[in-house]
């Protein structure tokens, strides 16, 4: 019997010769991650356990991205905890403001997430790195503290669902639309505890940034991990990003006779840009069916859609146009490198001239932290990943999820719109 890519990577990180879904396995960790919200609890647990030193200070990444730059005194204290721990233990991959980016965009860009690695992070969107063909999943702070000490973590080997996407994508349709459509089909617990393996010719043609957006939202279907087997697109990407990190990788592919608990096939050639209505990512509809929904804010960025191709897509729509007078459009390049490139390409100028505000990288508005909180009765379209009740602010505010082109078009129209309506 063959194995899936997820099973192969998990097995390679144990001493076992065979593995089956449902097995509990203790795995070696190649990289673990914490941020300014989750790491303080992990650090406190690490210290309470009386652990003197971390398992490997070159396999820990600490990214102060959530309430950073500090939004108030309490968050400043949490950021300080992270900073001091990083100094004390000489954590190699700690990123201070100025180098810091949104963790799930930053670590791949730094060449720290490579094919075949096993990565955990105390952040639910850690599943993003499946896009490079790694096994990667989110855990809580105490799990992270245990990894700080042991360098290992237990997992239940998940069953895998295979998703096959076929057909050429329409203009303005990308990875974000594929994943919103998928979650709309299977529901927010449709892949609970399971691995989501994305395949098919549409995935083979999909650029890396779109693959990151897809794997990023596996958690929104309850998935343990999202994964795309490494191919030429992946290799080109990791060859470039690992020039600095010097990390080595190993490619795993699912066997032809691998076992899947379910196979889903989607012809995506007629797919429109998708919008997920509040309060769940599974309330996905084609944008043409979302009519007369006025917005107060448009947020373009996040670990889902804050990469350079996302900004290019938004700029293409916004170029030479003005943001609607009743809309605040805030753009968050995900990392400093994305910011610089957007500057070099003239995208930042397009944004500012069209009336958008451009921010330093932060998770701020996505989780209702800071930098774009909604008041009661307000509504935002956002390229983020969650539209739960009150996610971006007041319990009586609303979030609609979309890709960057739809968010940009909506900012211009003042209501949710297809990019073709403004081009």
């Amino acid at each position, binding site marked *: 019997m063959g194995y899936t890519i997820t099973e192969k990577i998990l097995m390679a990180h144990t001493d076992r010769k065979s593995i089956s879904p449902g097995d509990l396995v203790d795995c070696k960790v190649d990289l673990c991650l914490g941020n300014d*919200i989750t790491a303080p609890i992990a650090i406190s647990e690490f210290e309470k356990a009386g652990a003197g030193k971390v398992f490997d200070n070159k396999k820990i990444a600490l990214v102060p991205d959530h309430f950073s730059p500090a939004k108030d005194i309490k968050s400043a204290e949490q950021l300080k905890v992270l900073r001091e721990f990083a100094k004390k233990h000489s954590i190699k991959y700690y990123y201070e403001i100025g180098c810091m980016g949104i963790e799930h965009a930053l670590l791949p860009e730094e060449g720290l997430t490579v094919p075949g690695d096993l990565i955990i992070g105390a952040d639910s969107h850690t599943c993003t790195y499946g896009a490079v063909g790694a096994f990667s999943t989110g855990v809580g702070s105490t799990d992270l503290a245990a990894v700080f000490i042991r360098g290992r973590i237990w997992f239940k080997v998940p069953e895998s669902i295979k998703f096959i996407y076929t057909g050429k994508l329409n203009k303005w349709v990308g990875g974000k639309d594929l994943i919103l459509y998928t979650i709309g089909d299977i529901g927010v617990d449709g892949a609970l505890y399971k691995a989501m393996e994305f395949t098919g010719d549409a995935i083979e043609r999909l650029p890396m940034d779109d693959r990151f957006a897809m794997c990023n939202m596996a958690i929104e279907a309850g998935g343990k991990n999202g994964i795309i087997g490494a191919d030429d697109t992946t290799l080109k990407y990791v060859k470039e990003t690992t020039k600095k990190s010097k990390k080595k990788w190993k490619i795993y592919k699912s066997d032809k006779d691998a076992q899947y608990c379910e196979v889903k096939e989607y012809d995506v050639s007629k797919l429109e840009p998708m919008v997920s209505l509040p309060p769940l990512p599974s309330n996905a509809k084609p944008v043409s069916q979302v009519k007369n929904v006025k917005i107060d804010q448009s947020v373009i960025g996040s670990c889902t859609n804050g990469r350079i191709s996302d900004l290019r897509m938004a700029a293409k729509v916004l170029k030479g146009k003005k943001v609607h007078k009743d809309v605040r459009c805030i753009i968050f390049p995900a990392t400093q490198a994305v910011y610089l490139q957007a500057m070099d390409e003239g995208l930042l100028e397009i944004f500012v001239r069209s009336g958008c505000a451009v921010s330093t990288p932060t998770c701020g508005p996505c989780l209702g932290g800071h930098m774009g909180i909604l008041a009661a009765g307000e509504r935002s379209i956002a390229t983020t990943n969650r539209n739960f009740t*009150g996610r971006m602010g007041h319990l009586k505010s609303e979030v609609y999820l979309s890709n960057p082109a739809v968010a940009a078009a909506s900012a211009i129209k003042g209501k949710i719109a297809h990019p073709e309506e403004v081009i």
Partner: protein
Amino acid sequence: MILKGKTWKFGNDINTDEIIPAKYLVSVDPKVLGENCMDGITPGFSKKIAFGNIIVGGKNFGCGSSREHAPLAIKGCGISCVIADSFARIFYRNSINIGLPIFECPEAAKSIEEGDEVEVDASTGLIRNLTKNKKYQAKPMPAFMQELIGAGGLMKWVVKKNG
């Protein structure tokens, strides 16, 4: 260990933003988090409940963010355990790791109504609805997870294992 208390019912897909909104994530103190438990869905929840009360959820309880502040808030406000149809996986791990007893039992999640008095035998997973005079059996925890709970949580298990 027997857990006994009045129940509070919630629906499907209760997410961690509802359990503890991000604005409270500037604290890691279970007491502070507990005071704001369920603020994203039932403001004032911590003032309504009594120590030892039980939360009953539907499918996919605890979905969303990995914030461990969610089970910490539930434990911190005095809830003795959570019974649900199913749990989101990070919430499940976090609850075991911090010592919040959770029980997966679709039958109980469906049958129990808000206000019912319920008694749970944490060692066997037997749930008794004292109001309705019914019994439900929760799915047993895998032996390894029972070992974690027996050790007093993940960190105590790690310390023991590392000698």
